[in-house]
């Protein structure tokens, strides 16, 4: 696993043209914690997750990964290595499930080691019978499990999930939740965006709502997060 501690984001603002999406919001994340992010459609959940993952440049934003407050741009490489962003509809590369999983093993040395890791991941994600299946032909639930298995292979400190159970039947959703539960126990921080909040009640430690361009804290079973804006007088590197 890539070693990383808490990560704090502050002063994140973003607009698409004249349409404001996020306004000066802050969020603190810790490995092993599960944060549920809710909000109405179009409230900016996906935008926020993509900014956290280093995939979308915000208008303003600062990140503290433990080595001082840096601009988002300077932190981008670290965000990309520490966060995995899983799309609402996962992208499957051409080829088999095995190939799709092996893409996430580029840092594993040796063919045999890579093969074993991929087979372990298939076992972990309950995909054992689909090794040679064309990944693009799998059902939505199976593709989501392939996507989670790829993330599990990378073992990042944080995984950002965009509506992971959207458009799934209850059986597929249950299997996805089982995998998320397993990920939580491997000390990976999960940030889950969903409008089906009750599905994640037993999993989430913190529940944040994105509304009117701001994050607000709704409730927590074991609250340890901090969503108050980080003071701007911190030293900016």
């Amino acid at each position, binding site marked *: 696993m890539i070693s990383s501690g808490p990560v704090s984001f502050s002063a994140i603002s973003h607009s698409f043209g004249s349409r404001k999406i996020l306004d000066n919001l802050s969020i603190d994340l810790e490995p092993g914690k599960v944060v549920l992010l809710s909000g109405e459609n179009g409230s900016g959940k996906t935008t926020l997750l993509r900014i956290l*993952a280093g*995939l979308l440049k915000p208008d303003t934003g600062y990140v503290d990964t433990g080595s001082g407050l840096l601009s988002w741009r300077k932190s981008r490489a670290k965000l*990309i*290595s520490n*966060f*995995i*962003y899983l*799309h609402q*509809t*996962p*992208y499957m*590369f*051409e080829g088999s499930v095995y190939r799709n999983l092996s*893409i*996430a093993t*580029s*840092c594993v040395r040796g063919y045999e080691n890579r093969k074993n890791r991929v087979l372990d991941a298939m076992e972990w994600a309950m995909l054992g019978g689909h090794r040679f299946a064309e990944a693009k032909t799998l059902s939505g639930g199976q593709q989501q499990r392939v996507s989670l298995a*790829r993330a599990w292979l*990378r073992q990042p400190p944080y995984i950002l999930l965009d509506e992971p159970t959207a458009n799934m039947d209850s059986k597929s959703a249950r299997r996805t939740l089982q995998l998320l539960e397993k990920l939580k126990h491997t000390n990976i921080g999960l940030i889950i965006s969903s409008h089906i909040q009750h599905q994640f009640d037993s999993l989430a430690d913190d529940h944040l709502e994105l509304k009117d361009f701001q994050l607000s804290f709704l409730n927590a079973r074991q609250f340890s997060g901090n969503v108050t804006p980080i003071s701007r007088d911190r030293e900016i590197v």
Partner: protein
Amino acid sequence: MDSLYPATREAFALLMSGDPDLWEIVGISFQVSGTAILISAPVALLIAFSLAYFNFPGRRALISLFNTLLSFPAVVVGLIIYILLSNQGPLGNFRLLFTQSAMIIAQCVLCLPILIAMGHAAFQSADQRAWETARTLGKSPFGAFSLIVLEIRFGLLAALFSGFGRIIAEVGASMMVGGNILHHTRNIPTAIALETSKGNFSQGIALGIVLVVLAFVLNLLLQHFQGRGKLAL
């Protein structure tokens, strides 16, 4: 028309007999155009990728420029390269005029816009999630680029075939900068022009048959890779 039938029969006989002069011309054509496409392809690939994935000042102007160059007459390209490589030109010291290298340079200039325009369209057709997924799974920018290239390989192959099809059949630039010198710079289109002007139709038709067969094969491959051969239902 009376001479067409015997000339065609003689052309087939020339092709079948393995006439060394004729097949040497075919070989020069493939060597020059093959080298040009091999040199242009990596450059075009990187430019097409940059145009599709990175936003930088002048990006739209560059896209317009390459689209405009698509319809640039080959003979004008030949003229510009001729001026650059002639003794009085800025690159005259390299003494490249009337060599295969000059033809390769001209053909690179001719096929680059096609490769870039079609490559750009292929990269644009790639799903944005592919790049993001590759990067988020730990691939370096180059690793992600390689993955995307694999995903859109059929579109890129179509660009290669189109570019090759254009330069192997063009006559204007090759004639101007190559000089149509036997055993050196005489390729299929320049040989056809010459043999026809001499009234030697059989060799012109034989070389024409090679070009037509090549065009047919390239078109078949293009259809295969672009999926045009598929039925709508």
